């Protein structure tokens, strides 16, 4: 069937209608970019034992980028000529899957999406679930190149492997079902196992499991669950899914590193390995105390994530509650609470944090408190605005008219309808919280200097920026990627939750 697009408008429409086209171009360009960075590094860094390996990986990225761009070209031609993608081109997606061997997730995701014509959200989530576990497994496996591994290394790796196998099985099972298909009841078992594997920190597995259960229970009663709907929209945006993939990967690493990483390599000084260039044994080099930067950055993810999440959750709850009360009751309550918060709002957050830490001393607990207090007013304001809007709706007036108590109205009827903007706001502020934590550590006000925390690592590295730049580049990159991941995720969530776009 040949059905050639004629007008520019039609061309645009056809290209936009196929997400595979967009994904292929994004994956191709990102792989090309990574390939360029890797190859330039391999050529420029002299006297580096890692060089041939870097060259191979860079070369393979380039190889897959080229394949991806060729496929992109065929997709484009297909779309323009036929209006849809032909099965032959779809099958070429299998060519992209081996890219997992060099951790080229962009191409793998684009490939997995291309293979299936009609994809369910569950399928997409299952792909990301598996990718997240495989990436964690691969990164943890780099530890085998060290002189020794952590005592529980093998147990940890075995657990990861078992998770990966389960997730692969569920991916293959889910691939059979289309979005609108009913799921059989035994899928409960798959969902339960997936949720169990989420104990490694794999948030995709958790979401997938919950979504499956919701879907089975719903079985055709309604057009779909709210949860499923959000994920359906989120899954359409590759950037936000990549963001969530990075977050999930880091959470999994942070949790499994308790088994698979040896903390002494990250904390104990080793004077015989001071400022080593990146090598097989030290994939990201060592710092001026001979500590392995790779282990330090991985273990630093724990603190960065913990502080980032807690400093978001605490003000979310406190600020949300204050905002809800203030918005619902109004008048004097509103005035007193909001004016008090306005005073807090007038103090710059980071200055307040510095003052609190200076007064109560440095440490993780004080750090979390210091960073939390400053962002309470922001959440309170958002919550108050939402509550004001929702509480004027008819159903709330109806609830009030039949004599429901204030508490019931507030918590049952109003709050559930106001959380969406709060979730978006919190995803966006986690990134800021991570940066604030690192900034305070950089200023010497965060955690103790020997504790692996990204700001600490960056601070040490910054002194060697000129002579040993990798000591600053890698922790800096980790911070950038995490913040970027949360921001992409936040953007995607905002689009998915926005009622105007529904």
């Amino acid at each position, binding site marked *: 069937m040949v059905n050639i697009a004629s007008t520019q408008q039609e061309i645009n429409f056809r290209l936009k209608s196929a997400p595979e086209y967009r994904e292929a171009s994004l994956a191709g360009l990102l792989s090309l970019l990574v390939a360029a960075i890797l190859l330039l590094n391999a050529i420029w860094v002299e006297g580096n034992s890692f060089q041939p390996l870097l060259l191979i990986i860079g070369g393979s990225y380039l190889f897959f980028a080229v394949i991806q761009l060729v496929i992109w070209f065929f997709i484009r031609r297909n779309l323009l000529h036929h209006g849809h993608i032909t099965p032959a081109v779809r099958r070429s997606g299998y060519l992209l899957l081996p890219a997992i061997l060099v951790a080229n997730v962009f191409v793998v995701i684009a490939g997995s999406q291309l293979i299936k014509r009609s994809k369910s959200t569950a399928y997409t989530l299952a792909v990301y679930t598996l990718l997240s576990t495989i990436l964690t497994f691969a990164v943890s496996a780099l530890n*085998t190149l060290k*002189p*020794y*591994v*952590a*005592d529980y*290394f*093998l147990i940890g*790796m*075995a657990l990861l*492997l078992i998770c*990966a*196998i389960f997730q*692969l*099985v569920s991916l*293959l099972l889910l691939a059979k079902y289309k979005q609108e298909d009913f799921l059989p009841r035994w899928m409960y078992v798959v969902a339960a196992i997936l949720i169990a594997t989420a104990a490694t920190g794999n948030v995709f597995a958790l979401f997938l499991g919950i979504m499956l259960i919701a879907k089975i229970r719903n079985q055709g009663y309604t057009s779909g669950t709210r949860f499923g709907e959000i994920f359906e929209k989120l899954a359409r945006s590759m950037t936000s899914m990549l963001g969530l993939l990075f977050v999930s990967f880091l959470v999994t690493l942070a949790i499994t590193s308790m088994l698979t990483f*040896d903390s*002494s390599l990250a904390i*104990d*000084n080793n*004077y*015989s390995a*001071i400022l080593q260039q990146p090598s097989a044994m030290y994939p990201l080099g060592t710092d*001026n*105390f001979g500590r392995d930067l790779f282990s330090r950055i991985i273990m630093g993810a724990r603190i960065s994530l913990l502080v980032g999440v807690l400093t978001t959750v605490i003000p979310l709850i406190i600020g949300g509650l204050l905002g809800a009360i203030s918005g619902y009751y109004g008048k004097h309550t509103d005035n007193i609470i909001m004016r008090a918060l306005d005073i807090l709002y007038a103090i710059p957050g980071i200055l307040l944090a510095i003052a609190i830490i200076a007064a109560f001393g*440095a440490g993780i607990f004080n750090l979390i408190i210091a960073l939390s207090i400053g962002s309470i007013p922001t959440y309170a304001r958002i919550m108050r605005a939402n509550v004001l809007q929702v509480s004027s709706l008819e159903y709330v007036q109806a609830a009030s008219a039949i004599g429901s108590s204030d508490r019931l109205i507030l918590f049952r009827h109003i709050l559930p309808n106001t959380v969406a903007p709060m979730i978006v706001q919190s995803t966006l502020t986690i990134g800021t919280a991570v940066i604030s934590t690192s900034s305070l550590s950089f200023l*010497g006000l965060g955690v*103790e*200097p*020997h504790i692996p925390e990204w700001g600490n690592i960056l601070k040490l590295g910054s*002194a*060697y920026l*000129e*002579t040993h730049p990798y000591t600053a580049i890698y922790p800096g990159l980790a911070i950038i990627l995490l913040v970027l991941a949360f921001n992409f995720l936040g953007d995607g969530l905002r689009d998915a939750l926005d009622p105007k776009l529904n």
Partner: protein
Amino acid sequence: MKKNMKFIALLLIVSVVLSACTLKTKDESGESTTPSNNANVDQTPVDIELLGMSANEDDLNIVRDQLAKNGFNVKLNIQPDYGSFKTQEDAGNFDISLSSWTTVTGNPDYAVRSLFKTGGDYSILSDPEIDALIDEASTQTPEQYQDTYKRFEEALVFEKAYIAPLFNSIKSQAFNKEVLAADSVRISKSRSLPWEELEFTDTAKHGTDPLILQSTFPTLTSLDPIKGNDGSINIINTNLYVRLVNLTDDDKITSDGSLSLNHAIAEGNTEYYFILRDDINFAKVTDKKAVDSGERVGADDVIFSLNRAKDRNSVPDHRTYTLHEHINTVETVTDLAALDALKVSGSDETVRAALEKGLDVKISELVADKKDANNKEGKYQVVKLTTTTPFPQVLNYLAHQSAGIVSQKQVQAINTYDVENFDVNKDIPYGDQNTVTEGSQYNNTLYTSGPYILSHKNDYEATFYKNPAYMKGTEHEPRIENIKIKFIQDADSTLSALRSGEIHLFYGVSESKFDVVKGDSKLELQSIPSNAVSYLLFNTSNRPVAESADLRKAVLYSINQEEFITFYSGNKYKATSTLSPIVNTGLELKADAAKAKEHLNAYKASK
């Protein structure tokens, strides 16, 4: 599909099993730090609090690491600056405190007296044995005190473990060799950089271009030499005021470049003679330019300066009288025969012969009034200083910036207030930094006897001009007309400023930046062993370390100085106490994990 899956699963399992066979876990590798199970001994780590400043974070981390590896659970207390560190230390909030000491006078007595003697300026110790050894050594000659100080170190470090020495630092400076002539830049073990000897590579620029140096502290404690002894003014006051003697680059006493032409120690080691030069006038500032005040620096100024240096009540906030407490009297000598009658300590030479050595014109007459002095005609001024006990090291203290010579006439004219009722808000003492700071309070009343005078300053820089009447026509006459000091707080920014040509010399380059400096072709790095020693000071009250020598020794033997040296790529030296850079006692601290464990177990048993 199923077949595919089975194959993949099999492949993965096989590869994992294969790799597992060749992997070594931490326990197997023997790298494990968990001590072997010994049922009799308590294995719980001992809590210990380590206090330090964030500037010494690297050292703190190394100490923490070494203690943690020897059975301690280290709690770090890191303070952002010296002020808060000192507050914590004074409040006793530490078990061990990372301290450092620089013996700026180059003599061993200064390295121990105020630190370890009962009642010393910085001392928290009170031990009669230590006191007796310090006093005994202070009266001895270098040959004699080596053994006394060895006994002192044995008691202080090894028997009682009051301190745990870490390392001896080097002093380093970097300068732009395209601007400064390399052989004119001196680096000395103790003394500050003499500005008068600095030369540009292009000597034509001496009169036109300023030389730009750097300092960390924009607030100068005081420009009165006796009222400050800290980093903000030590280099400045050394170059503003001339002294009776100087230190050479390796800490020997010399009259070279000082107010005296020669000096001599008379037999008995309590009388010291100085013959003064007549070619230095005080400089003053008029319209922000340096001019010759016409007033000569003479014996009356020396007597006045040293008497106020030793008298703690001569000025409010006197910071340096303990350095000069050995001075008994200072007077002018007018009787030439008295010099003939005296012999030099340890020699048959007369004091007069020693003072005349190398002079073009021998002494024909000693004059009382500085205006009558004329070296070309043989009319000299001689100052005699006596000490309360035989104390040859007094000369080192006279080379310190606090013994700088000020103008009697000018200081007395400015310091008209009553010392006891001094009011900071009303009275303006001589050398107050506000009088040289641009603004409404500017009223420069300085009279300086040294090669340079401070004209004016603000928060960003200070401007100095050469003293127009300082040893004119000699090799000590200042070459460069105008020197500026830029105030840059951060070491990394300072290095950037040096590399960009914004400043010409950076004093105190950190060891971690040596590679950067060496890699820059226009910079030259100079370094020399210094008298700075870092050590751990144990708390002496209210803490377990105060009571238990075993606990202190467990810390002492956990310290591995080799690791510090490796960390600083060989740019630190071993030290046994603050004396180590000055006196070689032959003692050395060796890390000994077995001894550390033994003492730690003894401590646990005694609990």
